[in-house]
Structure formats: C-alpha cells, structure tokens
C-alpha cells in the first residue's frame, strides 16, 4: 500500500512546486519596484554586430527610450519577439536590445532566424551591467524617460495586453518630453 502511494507523492510534490512557482511569480513583480523612478545605472557596453561600437546609457539622453533584455538562449524572447518588432516600428523611440549572457555567434544566428527588431544593440556577455540594472531574467523591458530615469519595468514576455500598456506609457513619455 505504502509503495503504491509513491507515484501520488511524486505527483503532489510536482504540483506543490508549480503552485509555489505561481506564488513567487507574484513576488517577483515587486523586485522591479526599487529601481523605478531612479536614474538608469550608468553603463558603457560593446555593440552586437561590432564589438568596438560601444554605446553608453548617456547616449540616449534627451528622448525616451526602451531597453529590452534578451538572449538567444531565452525561449520566452522568441514568444515576445513579434511584439518587440511592433514596438520597434510603432513606438517611434529608440529600442535598445540588451543581449544578456549570450554568445555572439548564437545571438547573430538568432537575429538571422527571427529578424532584428531593435534599433540599437548592446551586449553584456558576463552579465555585470545586468546586475546593476537589477535584471532578474530575460525577457525584461525597461521604459526610460528623456532624463534617463527608469519609469517602468516589465518582467516577462510582452503579450498583447502588455504591449498595449507599454504603448500607452510610451505615448505619455513622448508627450512629456515635448512639453518639457
């Protein structure tokens, strides 16, 4: 009888793990908050196509911009990709791809395969700057205003709802920039 309960025990352990996954997923959203309304941590990082072409966080001052964290190993990035492409076309502000903990060849191959949605690229292969940014896991999307302040952060893939929300916020940031 005891032996026969083993499969049930294993199954229940799996369920508990999944439930806990649900719970911590809610907590994880809170991780985002400390950085909101703080200046974006300073970074200078190499480019993706050309490692000599460095970009700094200060390059984008003066206009709102989007920082999208991705990696070729990141499965969810494939899922959000159509929406990232739409962001690139419809947002009208720089969309910076932050390639995280990746290999250059993998990342380039990924771009070949799924298309390049971003207007600029930086790479952080060791993940140092990502720690400053408080990147929890890819994909993540930051909205940064024209003064370099992080105004919003979304953890997880972008879907239709998130996309609509982001677009609303982007439009607000753009009009804010024009007003100032």
């Amino acid at each position: 009888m005891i032996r026969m309960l083993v499969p049930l025990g294993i199954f229940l352990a799996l369920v508990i793990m999944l439930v806990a996954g649900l719970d911590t997923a809610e907590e994880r959203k809170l991780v985002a908050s400390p950085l909101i309304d703080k200046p974006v941590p300073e970074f200078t990082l190499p480019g993706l196509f050309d490692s000599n072409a460095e970009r700094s966080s200060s390059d984008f001052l003066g206009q709102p911009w989007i920082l999208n964290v991705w990696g070729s190993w990141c499965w969810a990035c494939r899922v959000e990709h159509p929406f990232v492409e739409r962001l690139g076309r419809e947002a009208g502000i720089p969309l910076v791809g932050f390639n995280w903990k990746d290999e250059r060849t993998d990342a380039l191959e990924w771009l070949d395969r799924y298309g390049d949605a971003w207007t600029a690229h930086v790479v952080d292969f060791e993940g140092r700057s990502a720690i400053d940014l408080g990147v929890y896991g890819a994909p993540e999307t930051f909205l940064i205003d024209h003064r370099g302040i992080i105004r919003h952060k979304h953890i997880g893939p972008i879907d239709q709802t998130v996309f609509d929300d982001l677009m609303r916020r982007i439009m607000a940031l753009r009009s804010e920039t024009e007003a100032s």
Partner: protein
Amino acid sequence: MIPELGQISLILALVLATLLATVPLYGAWKNDGRLMAMAPSLVIGHFVFALMAYLVLTVAFINHDFTVTYVAMNSNLLLPLEYRLSAVWGGHEGSLLLWILMLAGWMLAVLMFSRALPTAYRTRVLSVMGMVSIGFLLFTLLTSNPFDRVLPGPPDGQDLNPLLQDPGMIFHPPLLYMGYVGFAVAFGFAIAGLLGGKVERDWVRWSRPWTLTAWSFLTAGITLGSWWAYYELGWGGWWFWDPVENASFIPWLIGTALIHSQAVTEKRGAFPAWTVLLAIAAFSMSLLGTFLVRSGVLTSVHAFANDPERGLFILAFMTVITGGALLLYALRAPRIMAGDGFDFVSRETALMINNMFFAVSAGMVLLGTLYPLVSDFMGWAQVSVGPPYFSAMFILLMTPVVMLIPLGPMSRWKQDGLGRILKPLVISAAVAIVAGVAISASLGAWSARAITGWIGGLWLIFGTFSYVRTALRGRRRGLPRHQIGMIMAHAGIGVFVIGVAMVSSSTLQRDVRVEPGQTVEMEGYRFELHEIASVKGSNWIADEARFTVYRGDEELYTMAPQKRRYHRSGQVMTQVALRPGIFRDLYIAMGEELDSTTQAWSVRIHIKPFIRWIWAGALLLALGGLVSASDRRYWRERRSEARGEVPSGTATPGGKVPA
C-alpha cells in the same frame, strides 16, 4: 448571434459531460441497467454539441467575424481560406476547442467500436472520459473562451503567426492532439478497471488497439512537426529539444513503454500495476504537455504570472484528474492480480528492460524540460538545460535500446536461453557490421558516429528480418497483423537511426556572401545566383533569390529561397528553398541583405545527407502502430469472450486471472 450559439453549445456539452460522468457511473456501481443505458445518448449528444461549437468558430473565421476576439487576434482580411480554417486551432482558445472535439470524437469511437464490452465496464470508461471532458470544457468556458466578443469589432484582425501559415502546420496540431487525446482512452480503460475493482487481462486487451492508434497519431504528429520545423524555421535542424517538442515527446516515450507493457500484461499477466500506472502517466503527461505549451508556463516562469487564473486552473484540474487517478491506484492496485512468474532470460525480462529505458528517458526529458522551473523555485542560478544535455543523455539511454531491440521478438515468454535467442541473430549482426563499415566507407562518412549509426540501423533492420524468417518457419499462412506492425516499427527505427547518424555526422553547411551572377561550389554542386527579385503573395511581399543548381555541366534544378515580410504583422520570415532527395537534401536559406547596390546577400547552403530517412523511419513507426492496431485478433477475440461474460457490473475484488 452565431458565436453565441457556439457558447451555448459548449455549455450544453458541459451539461451532458457532467451527466455522463455521474449518472451512468452511479448506474454501473449499483448495477442499474437503465441508468447505464443513458451513456450512449449522452456521448452522442456531447459529440454533437462539441462539433457544433467547433463549426461555429470555423464559420466566424470564414466570415471574418472580428467581433469575436479570438478571430480578430488570429486572422485578418488577407488571410487565405485554408489558413483561416487552420487558424481555428492556431491560438490557445481554439486549440482547446479542438481538444474537446477530439475527445468527444474518441468517446464516440469507443461507444461505436466497443459494443461487445461488458456494459458496466464500457459505461465506466465513457464516464471517466466524460470527467476529463468536464475539466476541459470548464477550462475553456471560464478562462479561455473562444467566443468572447468585442463590440464594436475592429475593422481588420491581426495576423495568424506567419510561422503557422504553412501546409505542414494545418495537419500537425490535429494529429498531435489525436495522439494526446487518444491516450485518454487508455486512461479511461485503466481507471474503469480500477473502479470496477478488478484489473485483469481483459481491459488490457481491449485497450491495446486504442493505445496503439493514439500512439501512431502521436508519432505521425511529432514527425510532421519535425519536418515542419526543418523547412519552416530556416535553420536546417529537425529537432531542437525545446519545451514544445519535449512536451509531445514525453507522452510519446511513456506511450512507447505502455504499448510494450500492455503486451506483457495481456499475454502473461505480468506487471499489471505497472501497466495501469503507465496508462495514467501517459495521459497525465499529455495533459501536462498541452497545458505547459498552451498556457505559456514553460516559455518562462514569468509567463505564469501573466495569467495566474489560467495557471491555477491548470493545476487544479491536473490535481483532480491525475491525483485522483493515482489515489485510486494506491487504493486498488494492491488488489490487482499478480502475473505468472518468469525467468531472468525471457520475453518478460526483455520487455521490462524496454520499459525501464523508456520510462527513464521520459523522466530525463521531463526533468530537463522542467529544470528552469525547478531551479527558479529553488532559487538556484538561471541555468538553461540545452540540447547538449538532452543529446548526451539520449544517446546514452538509447544505444542499449537499439542493441537490444532485435533480441526482444526472438525471445520466448516465461523462460528462454540466451544462446537460443542470439543464435539466429549472429549472421545479422555480422552482416550489419560489415555492411555498415562498407557503406560508411563508400559514402566517405568516416566518422565514429556515422559508422556506429549505420551498424546500429542495419542491425535493427536485418535483425528484425531475421525474426521474420524465424517466425515464418513452419507457418503456412502469413504473419498476423500485429506482428507485421511490430516488424515495420522496429525496422523503422533502423531507418531512423541511419538518418540521424548521417545528418548529425555528415551535414555540410556554408554561410556565404553572394551577388547575382556569382557561383558557390559545394560537394560537386554549383549554385548559381541569377537575380534577386521582388515577389508578392496574397498577404506578404518577399525578396527572392533565384538559384540554378548544376552538377558538373548538367543543370539540375532551380531553387528560390525567399525573405518574406507579412503585411499585417510586419513579421519577417525566411522561406527556405529545398530540393529533397532520398540520399541528400539541398537546402538554401536567405540571411540578410549585405549590400543593397550590388544586391549581395548572406546565404546559408546546406547539403543534408539521408535526412528524409529520419521521417521515413518515423512514419514506418506510425504505420506499424496502425497496422498492429488493425489486427483482427483484438477485435474478434473480444467478441467471442464478451459473449461468454455475464454483463453485470458486480465487482469482484482481487479477481483472478482468467485462464
């Protein structure tokens, strides 16, 4: 108005499923013939309403009814009709509807083809399947309603994911779902057996053709998916070990174990509890797979949070179905009869080894797939378990399987001698080794992987045919269908192994920059690019690279890969050009435009030897399963036996093995 009819149909189907899951089941328990007699009409009604809901959604797609949110999200005015029809299952909500329709269809099939089963038993099977359907209908209605409306509707919809706008994609999900859902039949049979209090050889024999059919559909579905990924993703790979693929592969591995353990349990009465457990596991893994994929749980742990309602429902539903089944198993399995004993060297042992390897492989894939979830839960660093883990583990686990397959059919039940099993296979082994080395040498594929692949594959094929010789000896009529099916399947694995070994060892790949007028040479082929042209499809525009392929001076083919941009979503897709062949495929995919003035493009050219063998082998497997399932033995014996059986629902706990 019409979409509301779909909604109403779903609700009615739910009502009927609820009735089916309770009233006839109660009747089976109390041995009340009138209550049990309700089951057939409930099953038919359930099917009719599920079909109705499905048709309503289809009509909404045909008519571009964008007031239906799901249609607006997955279709648009430019989408061709065939893709509008397949877009019905292109998203989460619609694919659930397809699931429900197929489950209803399988239930109808059980009703029609299992007339000869004892009434109480058949009723229990249908009731259990009804319970499964309740879960899906509730899930659909409460969290993922495909008939939700937006009023006023948008003038035009978004696009069906261009990746899915492909003929291969029309048939892939339905086949896969047929397999997934088909395991619900084996699950129903097992649970009905447990409920009835006796799990005997009967239910196993009855459920064998169903399990085989479901398994064949699953095999075909996975094969089609692999083939689709090969030409559609533009990467030249045929298996990526990504969560979506794994989600279909885990039930397949368990299903493979199940069809073999069913054979032992039916013929010899051995491992009955294990067979029940596998039947539960196969379906539970199908559930887990469908949900993990469809709910987006696995794409990222975070996606879970995007729709906690859906996630919670999934967990609750799985807990009820699988947890309930396992609880029932724990309560009833001790009563299951024990089979006859057997010696260490016997067919029972052979099949036990088979089960061990397949169960461990399934566990290994499950672990790798859920690993990101586990590590996240435990707070470990983000470690992705990639193809290297899967490939290494898989080669390790499947090499012994390949070596042992030909031995299995040769062995006898109960007891046997290793010498007797091996004797007829010695020649096959010798021929396989010699021929394997010779073929590898003649192909110039002089790597360990290619050589072992050829030897392993030929060993499977020759070993299987030496079984045919042994089996035909002293037999006037031909082999029975279930054996022919087994032979096809085992030889199919041989073909598959050769394909995999050749593709992974001898694929040639080059990334080159070409301009119109330039030529690329590879392996004796010359690829000449004439021009880069702009072409238009109904809902996309594309750059098309027009190549002519020569071998020596002979002009072989023209090939025209494309880079498409879809109007509606703006998504860019690579459309590869393929020239399939029995011994090699030519494959061209366009990369990026490098220089717009000279029209230089980066282009990837592959020459893939024997890749068709992978799918040919897999199709042989699927076909073998179907041929086995069609064996009259399962159907005829059932009738004669059912006539002898008293159609009563009285359960006899701890029933004995019928002689």
